[in-house]
């Protein structure tokens, strides 16, 4: 277990509601996701000292904010490296000067050494004399990162770092950031509304909604086991459904779920008593087509039958909605086009899908 280099606890009702408790270890990249207006940027600004939030912020042994004792270290004294959404490079200074202003007072030789080190680290050597408007979006981002790293920050805060560049550059910059992150030893907070971005880069993801931190977990766990339907929807999980726990079978390590006239099998989950209503999810990518009883192979699956109600092609795959048992219930999934062609799946036809028992996750019904 690494040290908790950054720990944040914010709690306020107004003017912007915030209810956040998070930690980030040295070298860890914590993704903060949420729709716009969820308070992501406010959270970053509170840590940096740009927003006067109520609560505590501690970073590498220093207390930056403690509202109960009236302590708030000014932004200049908090060693943060902040990457702004539009990079906020100083337009009248060259790339080199942009980075140099953020260097702590050091000797000229030291300054030179550190600047060339940063430019090499971020692969922007040779661009020192350019002004921001002479740089591409990707280059601007790297200069801004160099400036953020120049003061040897105790925490790196990235505010939507890829929103200002085009799709191709974004992919490239994300790979570079992932590589750079491995060379950094400070905690890194990445704020984004792009779930793929967070999934690809983050060690853990924190889901923020209306200023409230709903769940923090590693990406795979988060997407497989969201804590409630709200989180599941925020994560873009299409199959968020309502059912009823039918029975538990501890002996065979199974729980049965009633849904749309089916009895679905899943791994034993005794958090919910038999008869209680639950929300449940299954990730679209875990649905198997065609539905096949795989009990012969030892895997536990549930086969569900329905009518293909929607069928849209997106590039090499198709997005499909299956209406189950003539009811209002639908399952969403996507399949490769060649599978759709092979199995004759298109709008209006009858089809079956398999729901692996271990892919079904139950959640408490929200108040």
């Amino acid at each position, binding site marked *: 277990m690494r040290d908790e280099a950054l720990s944040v606890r914010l709690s306020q009702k107004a003017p912007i509601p915030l209810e956040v408790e998070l930690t980030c270890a040295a070298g860890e990249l914590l993704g903060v996701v949420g729709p716009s207006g969820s308070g992501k940027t406010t959270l970053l600004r509170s840590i*940096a000292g*740009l927003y006067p939030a109520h609560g505590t912020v501690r970073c590498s042994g220093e207390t930056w904010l403690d509202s109960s004792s009236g302590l708030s270290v000014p*932004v*200049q004294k908090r060693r*943060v*490296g*902040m990457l*702004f*959404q*539009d990079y*906020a*490079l*100083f*337009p*009248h200074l060259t790339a080199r000067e942009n980075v140099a*202003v*953020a260097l*702590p007072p050091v000797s000229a030789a030291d300054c030179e050494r550190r600047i060339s080190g940063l430019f090499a680290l971020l692969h922007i050597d040779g661009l020192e004399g350019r002004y*921001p*408007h002479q740089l591409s979006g990707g280059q601007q981002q790297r200069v801004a990162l160099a*400036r*953020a790293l*120049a*003061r040897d920050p105790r925490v790196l805060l990235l505010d939507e770092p890829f929103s200002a560049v085009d799709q191709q550059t974004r992919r490239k910059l994300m790979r570079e950031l992932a590589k750079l992150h491995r060379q950094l030893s400070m905690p890194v907070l990445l704020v984004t509304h792009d779930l793929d971005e967070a999934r690809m880069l983050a060690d853990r993801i924190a889901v923020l909604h209306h200023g409230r931190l709903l769940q923090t977990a590693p990406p795979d766990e988060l997407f497989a086991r969201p804590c409630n339907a709200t989180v599941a929807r925020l994560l873009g999980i299409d199959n968020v459904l309502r059912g009823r726990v039918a029975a538990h079978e501890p002996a065979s390590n199974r729980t049965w779920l009633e849904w749309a006239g089916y009895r679905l099998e899943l791994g034993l989950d005794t958090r919910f008593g038999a008869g209680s209503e639950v929300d449940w999810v299954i990730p679209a990518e875990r649905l198997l087509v065609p539905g096949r009883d795989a009990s012969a192979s030892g895997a536990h699956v549930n086969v569900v039958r329905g009518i293909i109600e929607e069928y849209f092609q997106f590039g090499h795959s198709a997005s499909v909605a299956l209406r189950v048992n003539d009811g209002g219930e639908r399952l969403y999934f996507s399949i490769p086009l060649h599978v759709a062609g092979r199995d004759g799946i298109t709008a209006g036809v009858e089809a079956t899908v398999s729901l692996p028992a271990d892919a079904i996750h139950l959640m408490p019904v929200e108040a």
Partner: protein
Amino acid sequence: MDWEALQLSLYLGLAAAAILIPAGLLIARALAWRRFPGRSLVQALLALPLILPPTVLGYYLLVAFGPGGIPGRAYEALFSGSLIFSFEGLVAASLIFNLPFAVQPMQRGFESIPQALREAAWCSGLSTWRTFWLVELPLAWPGVLAAFVLTLAHTLGEFGVVLMVGGSIEGETRTISIAIYDRVQALDYGAAAYMCAVLVGISFAAIAFLYMLDNRAGRAHAR
């Protein structure tokens, strides 16, 4: 051509600008970024000289600067001199009637600086003072230059206030615009025409310079 009057006008403009630009910087910066009660009233008060008839402003200044006014008496007590019918009085009046010309361009200059740039400076560890010198002032610079040129040009051209507060004392308060009026009164149209042409030339050069600045700033922002 009354060169002494032109020289006096230039001195007056420079003296007004020398005091008004630093003071205006502080006012403009506060108006650009601070929200405080009565901000609209302060802005309205600062803009008042733009729309008041110069004679009205001149009348109030004459009363205030005279022996019956508080500023006049204070000045008398401190420097044992008079604010009316004196160069010092004209400088003081110029500060007032140039307020909007100095403050407004600088305020727009500061307002054009994105908040994120200042925050980026703070997050880079720059103090408020260093942020001002390294980021705010260089970026607001076209506004500062515009304020300087406008103050200078407007002082050269001001007539009503100067006549009310300063009269027309040769070498002390007779500015170029007063001199032109005097020449016309004396039916010396030749001299008046000559001085008018000089003033038009200076004013046009000043305004052209401003537009040049503006266009250059526009190009720098077009990225």
